[in-house]
């Protein structure tokens, strides 16, 4: 039995990184629920290929002076997209629907829980295989 299965751990890790970044994006949406002209953003769904494949080897530019801006695309981050067809838009141009964001947030939290539990179970299985416990 190949209990170690590094691909599985890698896939779970990718999934958790994606969920973490999505949480940040959703938090930004909620924080801007009253900002005029703000349109909600979300991450592109994490495909199977992205979960199992090699991590993207983008290189971030180093900030060598305090005036440097980090730029919008962070290396290794997952692609973001703006919600093109929002459910409703306020007169000030804000398209964030708090209920929708809350639902997404809960979905993220549940998936995160699932991923972390899977990770733990897998580690426990490896522990069993090497004779601990």
């Amino acid at each position: 039995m190949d209990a170690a299965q590094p691909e599985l751990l890698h896939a779970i890790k990718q999934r958790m990184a994606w969920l973490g970044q999505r949480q940040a994006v959703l938090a930004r949406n909620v924080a801007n629920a009253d900002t005029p002209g703000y349109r909600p953003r979300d991450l592109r769904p994490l495909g199977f290929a992205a979960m199992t494949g090699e991590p993207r080897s983008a290189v971030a530019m180093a900030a060598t002076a305090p005036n440097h801006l980090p730029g919008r695309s962070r290396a290794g981050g997952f692609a973001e997209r703006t919600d093109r067809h929002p459910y409703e838009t306020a007169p000030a141009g804000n398209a964030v629907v708090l209920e929708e964001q809350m639902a997404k947030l809960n979905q993220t939290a549940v998936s995160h829980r699932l991923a972390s539990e899977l990770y733990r179970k897998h580690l426990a299985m490896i522990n069993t295989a090497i004779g601990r416990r």
Partner: protein
Amino acid sequence: MDDVLRTLRISAAGMRTQGTRLRVIAENVANADSLPTAPGEAPYRRKTVTFKNELDRATGVELVEVDRIGTDASAFPRRYQPGHPAADAAGYVLTPNVSTLIEMSDMREAERSYEANLNVIKSSKTMLNEIIDVLR
């Protein structure tokens, strides 16, 4: 894990701006009856808050901030009260352009947004705990 920690900063900024908004609403409500003291003077003018999304240079996170606290340019309502010291020749007094009803609904909205940000922080906290639990 870095992203989840970043979430806390974003939500905290959201709560801070909603707090400022509540403060401005409180000013408006408190001054809903601040009449002028002499004819020709203006009564209290309603204040408004606008938000903007700004990149925090130190951390590279986009945080929400108060854009500016402006004033409502709408006309002052007039009330007929000839005995008032600020009444004009026709007996009318200018009153603040604050509508308590609007302020109250605005306050509820600020409250709701504040709670939403708080819930994001709670959910992020749970996620962080789950990550730490993997180490156990």
